[in-house]
């Protein structure tokens, strides 16, 4: 089974602090990690390989610093790395990102299965996976929280959606985006870390992907960011403590009544 895992390097948001005076996020000096849901995708790929054999290729695009994330993917069990790092892919929107990844998948494929996290913790769009699938005309599913492969050319998947769990059967090759409850990613092994240190990290550029500069980066992106702003998220609470708690509870009950949460019915 040949499996590709799409990986993104994201800021480590557990590190993020709030600027006390502006109420906005402090972004300087934040470490970078593999997008958490991509770790679930990678784990699923490694688990499938251990049962069915084959190989796992981690594919990523990003600035040269993203190399660290790809080394971690090796430590976690990926066999191969395909790292697209070219200034001309910078600032790609989801369409241009998907187009670029499709070029890399096509060049290094064919794959039986392509996996990705449902969304990344920075952009949070969740669009790249379905866009890649649609561009390649692959069947796909999203929000996958369980999968079963019986070697018959199909995957049975569970999708966790708003009102329950949907069950679908999908033929290979296909693409899935996965959720955190799919599995429990394991820590890298010592042998894995050693392999990661030694791993070759060839960089792919647009020429090696046979991708035109007009299809990627800003030039290939249908969308444009017009404005970025940092919303204030602080509020000024009515604060009650000590002996005032009783009064605080009364105040809260009044608020709930005023908002028709209590007594007013719905």
């Amino acid at each position: 089974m040949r499996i590709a895992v799409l990986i993104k390097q994201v800021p480590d948001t557990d590190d993020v602090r709030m600027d006390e005076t502006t109420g906005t996020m402090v972004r300087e000096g934040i470490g970078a990690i593999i997008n958490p849901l991509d770790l679930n995708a990678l784990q699923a790929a490694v688990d499938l390989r251990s049962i069915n054999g084959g190989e796992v290729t981690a594919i990523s695009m990003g600035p040269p610093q993203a190399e660290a994330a790809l080394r971690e993917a090796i430590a976690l069990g990926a066999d191969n790395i395909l790292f697209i790092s070219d200034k001309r892919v910078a600032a790609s929107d989801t369409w241009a990102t998907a187009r670029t990844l499709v070029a890399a998948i096509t060049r290094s494929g064919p794959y039986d299965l392509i996996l990705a996290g449902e969304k990344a913790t920075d952009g949070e769009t969740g669009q790249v996976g379905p866009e890649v699938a649609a561009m390649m005309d692959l069947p796909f599913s999203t929000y996958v929280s369980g999968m079963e492969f019986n070697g018959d050319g199909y995957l049975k998947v569970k999708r966790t959606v708003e009102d329950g769990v949907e069950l679908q059967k999908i033929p290979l090759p296909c693409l899935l985006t996965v959720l955190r409850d799919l599995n429990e990613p394991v820590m890298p092994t010592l042998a894995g870390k050693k392999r990661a240190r030694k791993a070759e990290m060839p960089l792919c550029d647009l020429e090696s992907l046979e991708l035109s500069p007009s299809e990627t980066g800003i030039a290939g992106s249908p969308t444009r960011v017009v404005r970025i702003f940092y919303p204030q998220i602080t509020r000024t609470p009515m604060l009650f403590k000590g002996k005032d708690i009783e009064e605080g509870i009364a105040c809260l009950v009044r608020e709930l009544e005023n908002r028709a949460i209590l007594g007013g019915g719905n």
Partner: protein
Amino acid sequence: MTTTSLNQTGILVLGEVRSGIMHSATLELTAKAADLATKLGKEVATLLLFEDLKSDPAILSHYGADRVLCIRHKSLYLFDQEIQSRILSRVIGSLKPDIVLAPATTSGRTIMPAVAAILHTGLTADCTGLDIDPETGQLLQTRPAIGGNIMATIRTPDHRPQMATVRPKTFPVPDPDRQRNAVPEYIEMPEAVFVSRIQPLGMEPASGDDVNIQERDVIVSGGKGLKKQENFEMLRELASLLGGGVGASRAAVDNRWIGYPHQVGLSGKVVSPRVYFAIGISGSVQHLAGMQTAEFVVAINKDPESPIFKVADLGLCGDLFDIVPRLIQTLKGKMEGSI
């Protein structure tokens, strides 16, 4: 499909029907689209895909739909992303709208990117603001990133249609205007449209405690301060008194005190209830990102320096094991008194 007034459709809204029930986001988005369409001087069409619909699709016209397009087929009984994407692409192909909107639900966030990829156009995810640029007539799409710590306004200048998914409960649902009426149009499509490589096998509806917290008006969330699994019972009691759902911080979920579907935050769900209780939650950025758009936030925590108090409207600073039972008693007293 009728061919009159084809080029009049400024905005196509993909409605959402699940298990025969029209999702409220369909009304919300239709009404917002009507606002935007007025600025464009064009019409709104809302598209519904279903096998069975328990309400009258004509009500969409009371919320601003000039046309209500319905596709009814047995293969729409269960969600099939391949069929729904194909239908949406075809309807866009014949209506040629300037703008296509869908709720940012699991379905909308699955179908819309597939369609945008095929049509080679831009798609903005999870918008919380939409407007028309008076100069260019283009759609201005505002969305949060990094859990709402950054907001970006995005346009699609040269590709059509301009596509966006919109976070449910972002815009108000107006009172219906019963003067506005449109007769739903049932559209026939060739059987080949309903052929899929996906086989939907079934759906297990969530029950009781597992009902999606994003749909709740009140959410009572607990964190590390709850100390153990059993203490979530207290939050369930409080939540049920208020007709709400139970949420949790990542710490509580990592400790397996409650399941992942209840996790609020950057790596869990983003919620925007009318009232949000953060109990024993210190308020990491990770958590704040998931709840800061709540209308009214109540924080209960013993540490007065907790960041959660900075995003709260009402703070009770003290021992939650003292405060929560007292709050429950007070609420119970009120309720008995009001009967």
